């Protein structure tokens, strides 16, 4: 016989993401899942942001890479707690990896947690980590056609960081096109233009983050 079920299927990942979310809530931690292509400037952007943020709020960082500890070494110089997560091949972080690495962070002392996802514009968008917001960073050197080619990640992000605007004189890209396409995909996305080279726009973004966590 036929039985009507009509229930949402939650993957194992979604279940663990909910556990993480509860954990963050209990510790009053605001969590940002930072996504973007390899070389978009995720680590540079974290370095710049943390330099300005760390006197205002206690920051913690999880950096995900397929292999290596380079990014963690860079963040470590800023003297904030950091965990390097190696996925050993996986092209994205999942909730279980985050759940495990939380054991290595002093959660009581953290109010703002950045998670640098593995460089990729596709898979990270599908994996809820339990974060409060997703933020995507797109650098101008990647071209202005990326929002329309990878709509899902922009659809799911609360903010878009357009990075490397110092390179504008050397490139043929339209920031207006990136903004326009992104807003069509996601009318409520907040857009910041920044340069991690000359610090332009970083302060604006930091101000916005501070309003989110208060």
């Amino acid at each position, binding site marked *: *016989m*036929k*039985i*009507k*079920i*009509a*229930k*949402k*299927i*939650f*993957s*194992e*990942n979604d279940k663990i993401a909910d556990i993480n979310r509860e954990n963050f809530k209990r510790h009053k931690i605001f969590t940002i899942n930072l996504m973007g292509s390899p070389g978009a400037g995720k680590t540079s952007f974290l370095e710049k942001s943390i330099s300005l943020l760390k006197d205002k709020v206690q920051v913690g960082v999880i950096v995900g890479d397929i292999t290596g500890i380079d990014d963690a070494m860079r963040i470590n110089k800023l003297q904030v707690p950091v965990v390097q997560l190696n996925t050993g091949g996986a092209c994205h972080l*999942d909730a279980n990896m985050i759940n495990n690495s939380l054991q290595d962070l002093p959660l009581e002392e953290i109010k703002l947690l950045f998670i640098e996802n593995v460089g990729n514009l*596709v*898979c990270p*968008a*599908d*994996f809820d980590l339990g974060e409060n917001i997703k933020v995507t960073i797109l650098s101008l050197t990647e071209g202005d056609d990326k929002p*329309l080619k990878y*709509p*899902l990640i922009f*659809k799911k992000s609360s903010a878009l960081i357009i990075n490397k605007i110092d390179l504008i004189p050397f490139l043929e890209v339209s920031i207006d096109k990136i903004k326009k*396409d992104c807003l*069509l*995909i996601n009318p409520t996305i907040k857009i910041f233009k920044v340069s991690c080279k000359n610090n332009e726009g970083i302060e604006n973004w930091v101000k916005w983050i501070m309003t989110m966590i208060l």
Partner: protein
Amino acid sequence: MHELSIAYSLLNLAIEECIKRGFSKIQKIKITISSASNIMPEALLFSFNALKQETIAQESILYIEKIPLSGICQSCNTKITTFKPFIIECPVCHDNSLNLQIPDDLKIDEIEVT
């Protein structure tokens, strides 16, 4: 993508629903997938068929139905449905005010049991 993990969840959910109602064998599972989802039906089917072995769903068939995105163009009022992952432009008047509704990623619709 995480098809294996999804196949595992849906198989467990179906088995749970079957046993809860006092049945002992699943013949068919019908699920729906949103067109916006990145899930690949072929990969999901492959994972499901591997996982169902030695369960009460061993002889079951998995049916996957794709659900289109839908919306009404704010400019020309045309009702739009599409099986593409996303569209920006109204196919009729080319305006960009589609107001697309994106269905739930993944749902178990019905099961057939004995």
